[in-house]
């Protein structure tokens, strides 16, 4: 069965998010004064085959560990569901 894993990766607390800061400033400058903080991370969608949803989730988690996320600087969340084309 095909599953879709949605992985959000963002800078860890304590790691200076220069990009987020820059985007925040730009937003303020172009008129969005109400913006207090911006964080910029990554959104990764992985389409994968697995027998069960639990298997798919485990696979996605291990992809994060092995390649997609660097724990020293990034946090992440994984959400897996069946894929509906």
């Amino acid at each position, binding site marked *: 069965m095909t599953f879709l894993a949605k992985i959000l990766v963002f800078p860890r607390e304590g790691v200076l998010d*220069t990009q987020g800061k820059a985007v925040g400033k730009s937003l303020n400058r172009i008129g969005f004064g109400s913006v207090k903080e911006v964080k910029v991370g*990554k959104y990764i969608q992985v389409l994968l085959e697995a027998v069960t949803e639990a298997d798919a989730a485990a696979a996605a988690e291990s992809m994060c560990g092995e390649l997609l996320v660097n724990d020293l*600087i990034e946090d992440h969340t994984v959400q897996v569901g069946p894929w509906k084309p």
Partner: protein
Amino acid sequence: METMRTSVIVFPGSNCDRDVMHAISASTGTMTDLVWHEHRTLPRDTGLVILPGGFSYGDYLRCGAMAAKSPIIDAVIKHASSGLPVLGICNGFQVLTEIGLLPGALLANTSLDFICDFCHVRVEREDTPFTGHYRKGEVLRIPIAHYEGRFYLPEEQLRTLEEEGLVVFRYCSPEGVTGEDFTPNGSPNGIAGIINRKGNVLGMMPHPERATESLLGSLDGAPLWGSVNSWIRGRLGE
């Protein structure tokens, strides 16, 4: 084997591989092999392993992350654990941190611009295989060219790194003064290059291979090749 033999690992997207090869042969006359990342072993008699600069895998996802998963990496780790020198330049430094041979990570420059320029770095240690031909405190004029060169370690670990004296190069003024003003990329404590505890794995953002010919504006990188060459010959002589 009487002289140093260097393996330069070529990842898809590496672009300083040939530059390193030319620099080493021009300044030491020793042999260099370009080793494709899909190999699983290094050429016999490899003394120095270099992970060169460039954009391995396009710097997609995170710089160095995909290269760190290459088949050749096991052999690089083995080489390092045997005590032989491994040098990561620029993207190669990023790969070394992703492999875990060096601590930390390299984040985007504070300016969020790619920076290509000559800058100055101070040599903090002369007792490594890479810096024997320099004097401690010597200032080198050497180019950088990167978007992600701001070294990162959590504060506690950064302190330990400093206490253990693992910083080998630091950005500075032409006179050798360090500080934020002289650090082009925002790296903490002006860190430009670090070494592992064992003292045989060096990662640095500046490009010594771009400072090995006076025609190109600086010769200050040349002693680095000479240092490793001497170190390896010394070890062979043992």
